[in-house]
């Protein structure tokens, strides 16, 4: 159970990205976070693994407040929180296999990273994860030689290497075409259902939300404006989330 309590983030520029946001995420949930660009979706996800430091509030994971952990304790905690990104954030010049193995770095003693050494089990595991997302044949290809959909699958494999309990997905399909978007979302669904990983995924398209998410939270200018099942988003709610000029398509 992940509990967000009064989470607020004010950037140095004075922008209020999150304004007193509170909600709960039960284990194993597929949660979609929706809202306009700049509504605070990315900030919310990055506050959970503290890539961005919250200004105030609590993030309780099974009773442990992530916000109060020391940097070293947080580093250990991050190993259980996988993350995938809109722009994949792969190291372009490295091989696919190296990119996937990088997901294991949190478990490995830094001294061995200097000589680029990974235990054999990790390498085997990396191949298995690549097989799972269907690109094991690309293991020795440079990451930037892959297509967008393949790169995101490498991103997923990297997150799976962490053996995560929570997977944060920051607009994972926003840079992909609709067909690829569905294939990536299906992998997330699979991880959610087979591995019982809690998935917290920010999304732009409501049809994807309806198709994949168990639960939705909506943000508008940093405030939580909706929380509930996807089918409960009616036209009035839609206008509240996306503004009154927005039109519903699809």
């Amino acid at each position, binding site marked *: 159970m992940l509990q967000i309590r009064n989470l607020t983030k004010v950037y140095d520029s004075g922008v209020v990205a999150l304004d007193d946001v509170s909600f709960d995420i039960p284990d194993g949930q597929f949660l979609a976070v929706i809202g306009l660009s700049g509504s605070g979706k990315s900030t919310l996800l990055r506050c959970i693994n503290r*890539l961005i430091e919250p200004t105030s509030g609590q993030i309780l994971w099974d009773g442990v407040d992530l916000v109060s952990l020391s940097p070293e304790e947080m580093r*250990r905690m991050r190993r259980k929180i996988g993350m995938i990104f809109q722009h994949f954030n792969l190291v372009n010049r490295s091989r696919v296999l190296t990119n996937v193995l990088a997901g294991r770095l949190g478990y490995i003693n830094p001294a061995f990273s200097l000589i680029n050494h990974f235990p054999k089990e990790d390498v085997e595991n990396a191949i298995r994860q690549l097989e799972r997302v269907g690109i094991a044949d690309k293991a020795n290809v440079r990451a930037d030689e892959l297509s967008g959909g393949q790169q995101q699958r490498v991103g997923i494999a990297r997150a799976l290497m962490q053996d995560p309990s929570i997977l944060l997905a920051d607009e994972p399909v926003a840079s992909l075409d609709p067909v690829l978007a569905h294939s990536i979302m299906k992998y997330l669904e699979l991880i959610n259902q087979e591995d019982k990983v809690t998935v917290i995924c920010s999304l732009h398209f409501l049809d994807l939300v309806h198709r994949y998410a168990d639960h939705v939270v909506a943000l508008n200018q940093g405030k939580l404006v909706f929380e509930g099942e996807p089918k409960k988003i009616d036209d009035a709610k839609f206008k509240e989330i996306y503004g009154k000029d927005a039109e519903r398509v699809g």
Partner: protein
Amino acid sequence: MDKDNRKPNIWKSLTLGLAVLLGIVVYAYGAEVTRVNLGELQSERRQESMVRVLRALFRPDLLEYDQVLEPRVTPIYVPCPAGGVPEDLGDPRSGGYITVTPACGSPGDVVRVEGFNFMPNAEGPLRFVPGSDPENPVGLGQLFANTDAQGNFSMDFTLPNRESEDVQYIRVIMRQNEGAPYFTQNAKDTWDRIVETVFMALLATTIGTVLAVPISFTAARNLMKPVRSPIASIALNVIGWLAGIYLAYQVAAWIGGFTQQYVSVLPIALASVVVVPIIANFAFRWAVPVEDAEPPTRALQIVRNLVLLGIAALGIYALYALAGAMSTLGPQLARQFSGVAFMGNFLFRLGGILDLLVPTIAALMGGGALGGLLARVGQQATERLPEAAVKTMNIVLAGLAGAVLAALFGAFAEWVYQFGNPVATLWWPAIIGAAAGVLLAVLTQPKATLGVGIALYYVIRTILNALRSIEALVMAIVFVIAVGIGPFAGMLALGLHTIVSLAKLYSEQVESISSGPMEALQATGANSLQTIVYAVVPQIIPPYIAYTLYRWDINVRMSTIIGFVGGGGIGFLLQQNINLLNYRGASTQMVAIAVVVATLDYISSVVRERYT
């Protein structure tokens, strides 16, 4: 509305007019101080010397032939003697001879000099040899006589103003090349020096690159900005570094002295070099497990750190043993295989350098280890203790660290200026430093973090910029004093300049990498070292290669002139020849430089294309 529109336009024109005026003034003054004077080019004297130098430069002193010489003289009287011209006894030698008609005359008279029966198509200088001063022959307008296909020549001269009652002579020395051409001494010297130059640049670039890479990370804003620590951690880090450096240096020196007699025995040294790393490897594997799911217990951590300390001591011994083995093995190999003796000498030299460097390496590693350890202790103490206790701890530690740092600066000032007053150079700085540290600790929140990374970034940037503004040529002057005239001084100067300029260029590349991969690796729980190795390094390899090659280019060019100040290399020869007005010799060196620079330029462009 109209008025509003017009007003800015007038201002604009006025500003433009002023700017143009200012430009004219600037360039007028520039022409004045640079003393632009094209008239100088027109002067005949200048043109003559210019032509002479240019002709010499176009005939580099590269090849020469053995020459056959045919010196001949014929007597002449200036003015005509009262008793008539005595009978010419003639040149007894066979071969060519010269005649002059008439055989006497007053200064300014025109005489005809003819040569017969010389070597065909030969050339040689023709001179008037005064009877009173035969060592200094006088030129006769045209310097050289050239024989035709039959070996004859004929030239008209005006007699010089050298009157004498004795017999005087006109002399020709006919010369002809014989056999195959061979390289002149100048060409051979040039070859030796150009090899020296290229390797000077190579070593300087290598050393510079190796040291510039780690420095560049500390001079990159994007890596340093997130580095923040609480006061206690920073203060303990400073103290830990200084204490670590001192302790490790002492320990290394002690181990060195203690083991000296053993490592000079080759079998012991070689055995140590093989056995110690194996032991260290096993110990290391135990002390540093590859994967650590749970944080280890305190007791286990202490035991592990002790084992690591033991490994470090063994490592220092192994380095001494390696140095000893190389120093002993090198000369033996050099004697055995005299063809590649330089390899043996190289081994010997490396051994010597290693032996010198071990205490320094140990000191740096000791400083890093102790500094890091104490910084972690400070971090954890800040996290766990109550605020009031942290505040007290901060005040004490910051005061101590400030005092130590300021006392170090005081000691440096004492060393430079030799005040000879310990109150002014040790105690006052220490008190002021302590006060500054205490003040800092009092003014900040006890658990707040300070941007120590960005502060370090500014310090390193400032040092880099200051050192970079000193040309390698100037640095060479200092190093010539430190290690004597020769290529070693030049190599050190180029190396130092390479470190500072490459560190700056590299760090700008680090600043321009995409932050996405770093963010992704941080999110996996990788620590900062791992983030650098896996997210930063792969991104910067191509620009690093490009900049290294560019620097290698610069170093080759710089090393050609570093000899001007005694830094060795081809510049030494070039300057010598220019000072001796031997422009043909200098020309050879210039050609050599051009060839080397162009070749390396081509090679580096090929490499750059392939790897970037």
